[in-house]
């Protein structure tokens, strides 16, 4: 196929762990979406998400481990230009749409500004190409019914992700079984309308994915006064950053509190699956809501050729997913942690202690994760001691 003259770009957002990669996998499995280019953006220093998304023969995956929203508008525009150049030169398959999976911590304002042609003086070939070819054709935000309420109460990025959307999808609704929870879900659209009056809201269970990613006009005006204001403020701050008197030597605009951080653990040897789950359980119990996200791929001792994909969000852990084979040549366990107020060192020490099975001062290790977690320490320490005795 040839490259279309005009190519729609869809933004897929949702706070950490809301199910973006899962939805994207399902979407790309549909034959009519095989001609999609996918840009996956992660907040972290080890790229994992691209391994979790199935890449069909025609899908292109560009991965940035920086944060597009922090890097400003240029990175997304540069990525789109690169995709177009590669397909035009037949170095990569042609595509008829682009889906940008935003970081779970992503601020939509700079990305929406990046896709608004009238906000740029198209001075360079790159800008002219991006403005002429690509257009924002939809903004889909996933809202996790389990942790979404906490996220929009605590994280301004989560509020913005809802406010910018023209389609909102309630995810993990299949977990709701009891009448009270089902009633809560029924009330959610009314709550979300306080943040976004006009978006269409769908239940993940019966949402037609192809329709969510059908091109339509994306109107900033319809998103309301807050969205227009954030876009204008974003543009003003970006200009201030670029041209302001104190711009020299400053870091690029950062949108996340310094308390939010990402770190990784890479482990060469395979791990007994039960020990890994024990590590995750202990970490979740002690860190709670400060553990925003854990995701990764784990090589298990029981089946070294069949790694497990693991996901955890705050207190909630999905059952590990068994892959038939490794998605790439790297056979190491790779875990990415996104935390609020938790340092990497005690988490790494806890991992070594639990996975290595070495005698360890669990109380001190967990204490290092944070002062706020002192209460559960003795209970967890006692649990681990008992478990160690049973297994030895």
């Amino acid at each position, binding site marked *: 196929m040839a490259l279309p003259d005009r190519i729609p770009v869809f933004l897929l957002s949702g706070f950490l762990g809301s199910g973006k990669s899962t939805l994207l996998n399902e979407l790309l499995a549909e034959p009519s979406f095989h001609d999609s280019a996918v840009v996956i953006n992660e907040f972290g220093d080890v790229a994992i998400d691209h391994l979790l998304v199935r890449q069909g023969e025609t899908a292109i995956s560009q991965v940035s481990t920086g944060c597009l929203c922090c890097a400003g508008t240029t990175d997304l525009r540069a990525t789109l230009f690169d995709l177009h150049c590669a397909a035009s030169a037949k170095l990569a398959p042609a595509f008829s749409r682009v889906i940008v999976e935003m970081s779970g911590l992503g601020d939509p*304002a700079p990305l929406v500004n990046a896709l608004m042609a009238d906000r740029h003086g198209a001075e360079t070939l790159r800008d002219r190409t991006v403005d002429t070819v690509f257009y924002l054709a939809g903004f889909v935000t996933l809202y996790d019914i389990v942790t979404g*309420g906490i996220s*929009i*109460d*605590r994280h*301004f990025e989560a*509020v913005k992700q809802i406010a910018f959307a023209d389609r909102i999808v309630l995810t993990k609704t299949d977990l709701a079984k009891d009448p009270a929870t089902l009633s809560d879900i029924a*009330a959610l659209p*009314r*709550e979300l*309308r*306080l*943040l976004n009056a006009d978006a269409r809201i769908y239940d993940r269970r019966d949402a037609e994915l192809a329709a969510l990613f059908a091109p339509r006009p994306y109107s900033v005006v319809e998103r309301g*006064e*807050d969205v*227009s*204001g*954030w876009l*204008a*403020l*974003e543009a*003003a*701050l970006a200009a*201030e950053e670029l041209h302001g008197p104190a711009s020299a030597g*400053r*870091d690029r*605009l*950062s*949108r*996340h*509190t*310094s*308390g939010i951080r990402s770190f990784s653990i890479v482990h060469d040897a395979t791990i007994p699956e039960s020990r890994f789950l024990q590590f995750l359980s202990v970490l979740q119990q002690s860190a709670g809501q400060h553990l925003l996200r854990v995701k990764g791929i784990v090589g298990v001792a029981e089946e070294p050729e069949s790694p497990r994909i693991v996901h955890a969000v705050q207190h909630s852990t999905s059952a590990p997913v068994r892959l038939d084979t490794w998605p790439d040549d790297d056979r190491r366990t790779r875990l990415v942690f996104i935390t609020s107020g938790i340092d990497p060192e005690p988490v790494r020490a806890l991992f070594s202690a639990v996975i290595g099975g070495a005698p360890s001062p669990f109380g001190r290790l967990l204490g290092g994760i944070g002062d706020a977690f002192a209460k559960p320490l003795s209970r967890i320490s006692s649990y681990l001691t008992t478990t160690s005795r049973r297994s030895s």
Partner: protein
Amino acid sequence: MTGFVNPLAPRSSRLMAKSAEIKAWVRELMDLPDGTAVTVAELACRDEGCPDIETVIGILEEGRPIRTIRVHAAMADATRDAVAEAIGQGPGG
């Protein structure tokens, strides 16, 4: 029990409620006309010695460049006094 809480009432985000409160303070303190839009956002602060996060307020007046006011506190912690002080310090807070 000090008051009745309607469990069926829609629950707005605390951050958006705070944003609305800050907008009202700015309107009152600056005596802004109705046609002037006010926007509030949270960003990491880049200045040494400041808290990690700051609240950035934009004043959008027709025909004029956007004015920004920076309050060196997270949105949830911003007080009327802090907003008044930032306004008094002029652009950039």
